């Protein structure tokens, strides 16, 4: 799991290849915790998210990781994590989705050389609904990755504040 660190480790202020590291971090979380493989979409998707998880970074890296998908997809993710039928998922949905976001953020952080010791993660926050905009309070770069979970889009966005 440290291959990406060796391959992409660099100054934390250089964001080159961070999209690849972010994608690897997400794929690993889905493979290990959901026993599910994320795939790459053949063409851009019109995304219609109605659940969003956010985990903040503070310290040497300031920003936020945003994970978005449909409620149906998040329900399926929770069922895969817990090993139960999707119909049995109720209030665990938000908890599971937040943990997935948290693990992607942590896995990403751990793969960036020099970042782990000086960067803290917030606890996850969940937003239900899709009609909102994120307004960063300072200049922010966005790294966007879209992958498919069981054929449905999952967007992963890292907003890095400089």
């Amino acid at each position, binding site marked *: 799991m440290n291959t990406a660190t060796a391959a992409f480790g660099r100054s934390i202020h250089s964001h080159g290849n961070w999209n690849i590291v972010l994608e690897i971090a997400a794929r690993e979380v889905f493979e290990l915790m959901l026993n599910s493989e994320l795939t790459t979409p053949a063409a851009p998707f019109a995304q219609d998210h109605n659940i969003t998880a956010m985990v903040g970074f503070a310290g040497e890296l300031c920003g936020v990781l945003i994970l978005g998908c449909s409620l149906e997809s998040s329900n399926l993710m929770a069922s895969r994590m817990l*090993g139960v039928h999707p119909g049995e998922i109720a209030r665990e949905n938000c908890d599971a989705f937040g943990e997935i976001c948290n693990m992607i953020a942590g896995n990403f952080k751990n793969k960036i050389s020099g970042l782990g010791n000086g960067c803290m993660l917030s606890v996850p926050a969940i937003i239900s609904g899709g009609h909102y905009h994120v307004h960063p309070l300072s200049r922010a770069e966005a790294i966007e990755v879209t992958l498919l979970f069981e054929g449905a889009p999952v967007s992963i966005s890292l907003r890095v504040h400089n």
Partner: protein
Amino acid sequence: MNQIRALIVDDSSVMRKIVERSLRQAGLEISAVLEAGNGAEALAVLAENHVDLILCDINMPVMDGLELVKRLATVENARGVPVVMITTEGSESHVVRALSAGARGYIRKPFTAEQVKEHVIPLLGVHA
């Protein structure tokens, strides 16, 4: 192997269930799983119960896992009980701080049941 009483400390109930499932997949005979949502709740559980194993997250509200591990040295029911951290915090400094405070193992999330088995079984052998 004797039946094990485990305390799982994580602010996510989903993660507590996954950790419990991993323990069972490791082949451990679990007689009881006690749960706590943060370090303070864990101390309250340990004031009333003895356990054989503690699995603990780091980033939690109220009292984090590192603070909990430090305080366990003064808890009668936790004396000699192995603590394994299971956390998204994978930095070297976190590992060093956890092990220095008394943790006996450190597993980074995401994790597999096999990793839990590799860390936990030897510790319970030593503890038994």
